[in-house]
């Protein structure tokens, strides 16, 4: 056939399709915050994803230059607002390194319990948004139903459901009420049953498996290169958890596993967060048994003044490695600069790598499993 064509004549083998540009704008039901994704698409297939953020930039680090340390703890609630209690701890550990104060045992137990409650709360939002973004809006309400119980506990202890502002250098702001430990115990029993139902609802569902296995694979080398952390990193095969590698608070006294999966696709990132909920429940049960009823909940209250120097702390929040870097130029109550490293920024940076070649529905799944919180990126 080709011998009959005149010389120099080329047959066009591919259809002449154009790529087009579509904008998953800052207002979209499933971009987890005000994030703009500029997509270059070839039909339904994604060629390139360029994230634009900054829509919710509030100038927190600039404000920190004119606030005292205590006021910055109140501001740090608003970074990753799904687990505000964990943000508080990140800042406070850096301050404690500067002030060189110890923390009494009861305060440490309170810290670990509230941290794990915050982790479960964040992963429940992940579960809800994962199911909701995939199309089953019932999951959204299931996730938030259990989270309401955690909010209740947090409100009783700290006074506020979301912006907790609870930890202070040397302990916490106030003691926990007597009903705290029984409430946590009742919540754990309730959550066991609920998680059984929720796993039956989604985990082996054939449609969920089809939509998430093999999608958005992030290899081990890429995950480390981009700086991912937390469940995203551990789902790609890297066994790195700050609570084991660089233990803070009293995490080295508890017996818990770090789940690690090898494939790095969406289904692994889903499985790992469900496994982490179970591990957090394990830690909470151990805390409930060993909780010291007597004891000081704060070491002697001193004004929060840091000597001159640079102080760094890193903790493992539900999203990943959350680090705080405090620069105190003079001994005093106000910092020169505070910088926070939010774990969601590298995840969004890796989105392009993960989403190329997939369809737009897969992009939504990948975003849901990365579980970013955009205000944490924009601060």
């Amino acid at each position, binding site marked *: 056939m080709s011998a009959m064509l005149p010389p120099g004549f080329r047959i066009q083998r591919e259809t002449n399709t154009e790529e087009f540009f579509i904008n998953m704008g800052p207002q979209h039901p499933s971009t987890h915050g005000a994030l703009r994704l500029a997509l270059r698409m070839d039909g339904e297939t994604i060629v390139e994803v360029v994230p634009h953020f900054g829509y919710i930039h509030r100038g927190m680090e600039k404000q920190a230059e004119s606030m005292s340390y205590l006021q910055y703890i109140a501001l740090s609630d608003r970074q990753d607002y799904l687990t505000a209690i964990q943000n508080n701890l990140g800042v406070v550990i850096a301050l404690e390194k500067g002030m060189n104060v110890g923390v009494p045992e009861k305060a440490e137990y309170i810290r670990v319990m509230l941290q794990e409650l915050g982790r479960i709360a964040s992963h429940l939002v992940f579960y809800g948004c994962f199911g909701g973004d995939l199309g089953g809006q019932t999951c959204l309400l299931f996730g938030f139903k259990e989270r*309401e119980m955690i909010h209740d506990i947090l409100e009783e202890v*700290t006074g506020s459901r979301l912006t907790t502002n609870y930890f202070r250098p040397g302990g916490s702001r106030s003691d926990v*009420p007597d009903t705290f430990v029984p409430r946590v115990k009742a919540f754990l029993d309730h959550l066991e049953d609920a998680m059984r*139902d929720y796993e039956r609802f989604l985990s082996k*569902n054939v449609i969920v498996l089809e939509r998430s296995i093999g999608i958005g694979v992030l290899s081990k080398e890429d995950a480390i290169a981009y700086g991912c952390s937390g469940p995203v990193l551990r789902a790609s095969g890297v066994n790195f958890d700050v609570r084991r590698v660089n233990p803070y608070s009293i995490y080295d006294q508890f017996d818990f596993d770090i789940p690690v999966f090898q494939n790095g696709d969406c289904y692994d990132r889903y499985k790992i967060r469900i496994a982490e909920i179970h591990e957090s429940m394990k830690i909470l049960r151990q805390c409930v048994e060993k909780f010291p009823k007597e004891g000081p909940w704060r070491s002697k209250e001193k004004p929060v003044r840091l000597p001159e120097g640079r102080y760094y702390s890193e903790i493992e929040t539900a999203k990943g490695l959350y680090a705080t870097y405090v620069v105190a130029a003079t001994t005093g109550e106000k910092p020169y600069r505070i910088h926070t490293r939010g774990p969601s920024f590298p995840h969004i940076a890796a989105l392009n790598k993960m989403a190329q070649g997939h369809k737009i529905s897969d992009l939504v799944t990948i975003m849901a499993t990365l579980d970013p919180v955009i205000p944490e990126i924009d601060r």
Partner: protein
Amino acid sequence: MQENITLLQYFKRYFKRCITGPWSLICGLSVSLKYFFDPRRIVTEQYPENRKTLKMHERFRGRLEMIEDEEGNNRCTACGMCERACPNASINVLSTKNIAGKKVLGRYVYHFASCTQCGLCVEACPFGAIRMNQDFEVATTDPNTLEMILNKKEGQG
């Protein structure tokens, strides 16, 4: 995305999925049915109808108020610690001098519109003169009501 598998493997996977697929869907439906038919699982409250029985937790941080005894005396000495502790300048402590020439509280101006209800002011007060109350129904149509004067009488110092 396409892996190379043999025809036999393809058919094995196909038929296995014919069984496991519908079973997983039936499991999901069973959870739905369980939640549909069990009215004890309802977790929502009917809000305006249950207002009389609503009680917040003791530590709930609602609106700031000044603690006053029966005669209306407060414990504020106009030291200004709360004004310094507030992250976004929602408190203005205006002091005056009383007859003896001592500095006392004149007016305690509270900008509720910009208050983040963090409670740092309550923590900072050395005399326990202010607290956050349990008021959560604070929406209003008139922004002028959000500029409040918290004290009724001048302070005693």
